[in-house]
């Protein structure tokens, strides 16, 4: 049973063939670094997203390896080249069986 959280992706609904368009993807996650301590001095264990991948009709367009140095509620703004109409898939995986997948369609004219 995997844990998941909210994710919001922003990209245009349509694009012209060959056009390079920007994509925003933000996910709700505390990114507990593993370097924080409670007041009693007990270390709070690491719990972060490790990888984010964006594929466009199954082909990788952007990938990121995340380490504890990435801020809470990780945001990525990146680009993709409009090729065929289809689906962009956004996948976040991380510690403690974390998995979130979001899909969004795009029409290429």
């Amino acid at each position: 049973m995997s844990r998941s959280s909210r994710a919001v992706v922003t990209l245009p609904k349509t694009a012209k063939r060959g056009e390079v368009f920007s994509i925003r993807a933000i996910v709700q996650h505390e990114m507990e670094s593993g370097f924080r301590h409670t007041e009693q001095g007990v270390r709070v264990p690491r719990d972060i997203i490790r990888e984010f991948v964006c594929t466009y009709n199954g082909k990788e367009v952007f990938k990121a390896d995340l380490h504890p140095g990435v801020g809470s509620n990780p945001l990525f703004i990146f680009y993709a080249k409009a090729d065929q109409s289809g689906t962009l898939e956004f996948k976040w995986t991380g510690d403690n069986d974390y998995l979130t997948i979001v899909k969004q369609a795009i029409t290429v004219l």
Partner: protein
Amino acid sequence: MRLLGQCALLGLLLTSTPFLQADSRVSAYALMSPTNQAMQNDMSLNPAMFWIMDGEALWIDRNNPSSKACVDCHSDVKQSMKGVSATFPKRVQGKLLNLEGQINQCRTTRQQSPAFAYESKPLLALSTLIAYQSRGLPIAASKDSAIDADFQKGKTLYFQRMGQLNLSCAQCHDDRAGLKLAGSVIPQAHPTGYPIYRLEWQNVGSLQRRLRNCMSGVRAEQYPYGSVELAQIELYLMRRANGMRIESPAIRP
């Protein structure tokens, strides 16, 4: 005779701005970097959006003994809650309540459920959702004369020295606003953006959390969450900031 009338008018104008000089009031938004300002303005970059979405889910949640959700009494949150957070704290059924207090009153009396704890996810989600509906509107602090005594008490607390450092709110936020404390510019402390996503907290938090933060900053014993003292200070701050634009949910460093 005419000169007397003009003097009287001038006198009236000078005394009608009781707090800071006519309008030298500035939100802490102005002190932030352009990047952080953009993070606040653009909801697709503002992490508080997740709390708003959680709030939207709670707004329609009927999973409680009354089987009633907020939506059953208040319908569309965008309509019913527009301008609402701008008027709190106010007197509700004889008691001084801030927004969180009002949410909990509905929760306990209408939904027959235990009150949400301060800084709990559900309470932050609902207060962020409701406060967001007042974004862009001016603060319209309650002018109810029945809470004037609370306002005076809040004012007294604001000007009262406290803690091991023996400082009052006014000494930093009135007298020294714009000067620096340990590398940070001291803001005027207007509650225009609450609940805020504070970068230091990596979380959304209430005005009461921030007030308690200040109190621990001067090494004073903090008033408990939901206490009448904190509500009185909130009321003082809201009347002091009356008319300023609401930015909720704001980003703060």
